[in-house]
């Protein structure tokens, strides 16, 4: 095991999958010679050549449309969209085709492609570079939407996404790329898509989060333990859609208190569906209303003010206390 950043862990996943299966092709803007603007594909071009690590012209929709064709033909394209804010250019290719070709051909074809894209704020980026819009993808039948929360889950989930027979949107939190290191085993490791996990056990309150927000959520849980003696359970969704509601429903049945933390805008965001599931499946266990600590319903401000937009440990603990005191 080596301690790795998330960028290194993702790189490891790509490298090993490319070694394992020559159908795996990496493509996108600047993924080749340059190694990707965040260096996730660093060294792959040297190792696998320009036939398998493909620098494309500047057209996200072209990249995705071409990937669909490649996948239908039997390849396993892993395309990088340089920032998730530019993946709306290819929204119709995902909505109208990638997510449906299995259905559109009644099972004859399928689209085993992965669309990787960095998302979220916190890295002093330019306009249009810091959004969290996973809810768009989560609402599309036939698609999977995955967001790892650290190096180890990133590596294991990316491997699973590449091997998955269906199209996967894979969001990588920029804020986590180099934020910390984790032990990542050299040998193969996968995590099943569509399964959440308990990131921290607890009895009094269930905090549900994912991606970049998992860490502040965990910190808030620590703080609540230390300062308030409150034992918070933390659920890491890992897959946003199809949404695994089993763990968080079970947890809330135990704790009676639930709160969701995400960076995406609140209204019509992922938290709403989690609340809907809890209402459907754990209504009678809920002692108080479910809380949402999320981005506000505005465009995330440029970086001078983004820390006030992104849920912080303080906002999470503040809201958790409010819920517990209700």
């Amino acid at each position: 095991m080596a301690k790795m950043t998330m960028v290194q862990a993702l790189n490891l996943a790509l490298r090993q999958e490319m070694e394992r299966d020559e159908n795996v092709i990496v493509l996108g803007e600047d993924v080749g010679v340059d190694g990707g603007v965040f260096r996730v594909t660093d060294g792959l071009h040297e190792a696998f050549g320009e036939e398998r690590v493909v620098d494309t012209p500047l057209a996200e929709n072209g990249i995705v449309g071409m990937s669909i064709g490649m996948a239908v033909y039997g390849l396993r394209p892993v395309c990088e969209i340089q920032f998730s804010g530019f993946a709306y250019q290819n929204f119709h290719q995902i909505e109208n085709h990638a997510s449906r070709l299995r259905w559109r051909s009644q099972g004859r074809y399928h689209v085993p492609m992965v669309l990787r894209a960095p998302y979220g704020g916190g890295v002093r980026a330019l306009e249009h570079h810091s959004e969290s819009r996973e809810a768009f993808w989560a609402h599309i039948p036939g698609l999977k939407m995955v967001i790892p929360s650290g190096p180890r889950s990133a590596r294991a989930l990316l491997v699973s996404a590449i091997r998955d027979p269906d199209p996967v949107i894979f969001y990588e939190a920029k804020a986590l790329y180099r934020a910390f290191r984790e032990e990542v085993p050299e040998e193969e490791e996968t995590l099943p898509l569509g399964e959440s996990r308990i990131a921290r056990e607890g009895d009094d309150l269930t905090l549900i989060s994912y991606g970049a927000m998992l860490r502040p959520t965990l910190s808030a849980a620590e703080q609540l333990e230390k300062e308030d003696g409150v034992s918070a359970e933390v659920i890491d969704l890992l897959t946003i859609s199809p949404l695994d509601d089993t763990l968080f429903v079970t947890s809330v049945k135990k704790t009676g208190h639930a709160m969701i933390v995400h960076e995406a805008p609140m209204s019509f965001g992922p938290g709403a569906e989690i609340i809907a599931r809890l209402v459907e499946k754990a209504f009678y266990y809920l002692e108080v209303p479910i809380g949402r600590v999320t981005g506000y319903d505005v465009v995330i401000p440029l970086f001078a003010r983004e820390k006030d937009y992104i849920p912080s440990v303080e906002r999470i603990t503040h809201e958790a206390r409010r819920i517990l005191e209700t």
Partner: protein
Amino acid sequence: MPRKKIDLPGQIDHLSILDEDGKLDESLDPGLPDELLIKLYEAMVLGREFDRRMLNLQRQGRIGTFPPITGQEAAHLGAAAVLQADDWMVPSFRETAAELWRGRSMESVLMAFNGFNEGFHVEEGRNDLPNSVPVGSQVLHAVGIAWAMKYRKEKRVAMAFFGDGATSQGDVHEAFNFAGVFQVPAIFVCQNNQWAISIPRSQQTRSKTIAQKALAYGIEGIQVDGNDILAVYAAAAEAAERARNGDGPTLIECVTYRLMMHTTADDPKRYRTEEEVESWQKKDPIHRFQSYLKEKGIIDEDGIADVEASVKDRIQEAVDTAEKQMAETPDPLHMFAHVYDTMPPHLEAQREQLAQWRNNTGEEE
């Protein structure tokens, strides 16, 4: 203001072999074997007659909306005819004759246009994508398929079809550009039928031809008389050879005409004149091909009648079979199939809910 002219590579030609009366330009004769000529003729007649029958069924409420192909048989069939079985065809929605040529059953067409998802099933062995309704969106898929063929060092080609209207879409631009950059074995067949619903070709783009758009991507482009099946075939065959030799993609503009309505929901009288339609009826691709075949002595009046009769029989049989299949009560639970490889729990639950609810109401009623 005087300045230096840039020496641009690329030249756009126009190809026409059979004129409107079926007279052949011998110097350009692609010399297809008689057997193939007859097969193509039959396929054109099948396309035309099937169209007629579908229109009939639609008017009787026995199928839903569909886009007729009448007048465009040469434009898509001539191109698809150069494909091998292991080549791929990526259709739009107005290539029925070519789809049937490739092996799609008439039953599947009828079912699809009558709202049954089963009609979308692509059988093993036929390497075609299903119809694509979002205009232009499919062309990139052909580029990806062609990319994969090149990657696997297979001498295959991927042929995409689309209309004149589709050339306005960003997708099609990106497809041409990617194909040029990656030099993939793709053939882009534009059925320029002069109209995109009510928008005439001249309002779709200001370029004189569609073919010249190839110059923007440094790829080969050619304009052909799309009502001349020999010209379409010859251009497509040349493009296929280029593709198989690793010499990159080709854009073929087939100049043709949609003689019927856009779809059965459309009323072309609102936007175009009868005279225009009539002037194109004179250029009918089947009529001229028939004249040529007669002239060449490959077919006579009896043969023509035979072809028509046998085509009608086949169509009748297909309609009967399809209607029988559709009459068997459709199982709505089928809608949960083919969404994912493995059905996730929430879909299982929804499927179960629908199943139970149907049982209940079935019992209640």
